[in-house]
Structures are given as C-alpha cells and as structure tokens.
C-alpha cells in the first residue's frame, strides 16, 4: 500500500506532520465503477487518492436521458472533496472510480480539530488547499472562456 506523503495538500509539511495528518483518515478501497460520493451529498470528508483514479462527473441530458459526463479526472497524490472544507459542505460533483482505487478519507472534524491544536500545520495545509482550489478555478475559467468563445463564433459569425 502506498502512502502519498507528496500529496498536493501535504506539500511543505515534514514527513512526521504529513503522516500524522494521514493517520486521521481511513483507507477506503473502491472497486471499478464504485461511487465515492454523489452529487449533492453531505461533504464530511476530503479524500486523498492513494492509488488509482477518481472521475468527477456531472449529470447532462443527452437525447432525453440523464448521463454522467466527465468533468475532471483526479489521480494518485491528488485530493478531492474540497467541498468538505467549504460551506455549505455539499458535494457539487459525483465521484466514482473507473478502476480499482484506494483513497484516504479524512473527516473535516478530525482535520479542523488537529489544526486547532497545531495551527502552524493548519496554516501550511490551508495555503495548499487555497493553491489547489485556485488552480482549479483558473482552469475552469479558461475552459468556460474557450467554450463561450466557440459559441459566440457559431452564433454571431
């Protein structure tokens, strides 16, 4: 079993600190096709991908039927489920494993409780969270701008 000490939100922490954070979590194995969390569910934990891949999808109407459409892929060492740290703490995407995968589920309550006792760790992890979330925001802004540009070109050309 791999321990993702170099995970995105653990960057800048000592090995000991990273291990203590990971010890707050529980390893969860997902079989191929198994759902990790559904759209709209209460977000109580963030998840670190220890092995495999998790696909994030959104529902889309295609020919009168609702289909799950890929929005983003998350791979080993990456974190997902940031909604667990952001009110109203509800997942805005569906997450499922396209192949057998393993994640470490870290409950929000355990994480914030640890940060209260170790604020310097909380500061570093919060900066990492902000960096990851900010990068995803920039990515989706760019993707949205590209799609809008194509739509305008189609409609107004």
């Amino acid at each position, binding site marked *: 079993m791999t321990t993702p000490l170099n995970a995105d939100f653990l960057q800048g922490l000592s090995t000991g600190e990273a291990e203590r954070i990971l010890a707050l979590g529980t390893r969860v194995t997902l079989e191929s096709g198994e759902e990790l969390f559904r759209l709209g569910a209460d977000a109580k934990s963030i998840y670190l991908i220890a092995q495999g891949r998790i696909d994030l999808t959104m529902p889309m109407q*295609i*020919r009168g*039927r609702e*289909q799950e*459409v*890929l*929005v*983003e*892929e998350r791979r080993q060492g990456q974190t997902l489920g940031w909604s667990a740290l952001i009110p109203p703490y509800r997942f805005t995407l569906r997450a499922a494993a396209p192949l057998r995968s393993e994640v470490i589920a870290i409950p929000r309550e355990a994480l914030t409780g640890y940060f209260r006792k170790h604020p310097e760790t909380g500061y570093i992890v919060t900066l990492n969270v902000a960096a990851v979330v900010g*990068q995803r925001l*920039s*990515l*989706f802004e*760019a*993707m949205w*701008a*590209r*799609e809008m*540009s*194509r739509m305008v070109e189609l409609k107004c050309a």
Partner: protein
Amino acid sequence: MLLTGIFASFFALAIAVIAFGAVVKQNEPPRTPADPLQTREASHFFTSPQARPLEMPRVPVEALLSQLESHVRLEQAAAESFVADPTSALLHSRTASPFVN
C-alpha cells in the same frame, strides 16, 4: 336568293370561326421562353426539388460520451497550458477534439 342566303351563311360561319379563334387565342397564357433553370433542374436524374436531404446516422450514446470525455480531457490540457502561461493565443488554441473539428 337561295344562293345569296347560302353564301351569307358561309360568310357568317367564317366570321364566327375567325372570331372564335381569336377569343381562344386571347385566353391562352403567353408563351415565354423556356426557363433555363427549370430546364436544368428537370433534367437532373438523381435529385428532385422535393427530395429531402439524407439524414446522417446518429452517433450511439456510448460513442458520444466517449467523444465528450476526450473533449473534456483535451480542453483541460489546453486550459492548463493557458494557466501556466496566460496569453490570448493559448486561451484560444485549437485542439483535436472531434466536437470542435
């Protein structure tokens, strides 16, 4: 007298025929030169003006979803390039996505 009557009848009949012919001619639609376009269309063998365009076969939903996934991955990669080096050229760079090509 009799001959006069006969000739008058024939004359009246001739006038009537001529007059009838003139009226019929008046009611005929004016003859126009043949419309070259209509002639060209009428001579088409494989198409007709009333024919509907052939419907393209629908892509199966599974193939459509696969194309969508490919499109999302390519768009994400293009967006990552832009975020790493924000320029207008990279923002509007083209991908090989089947959805936009």
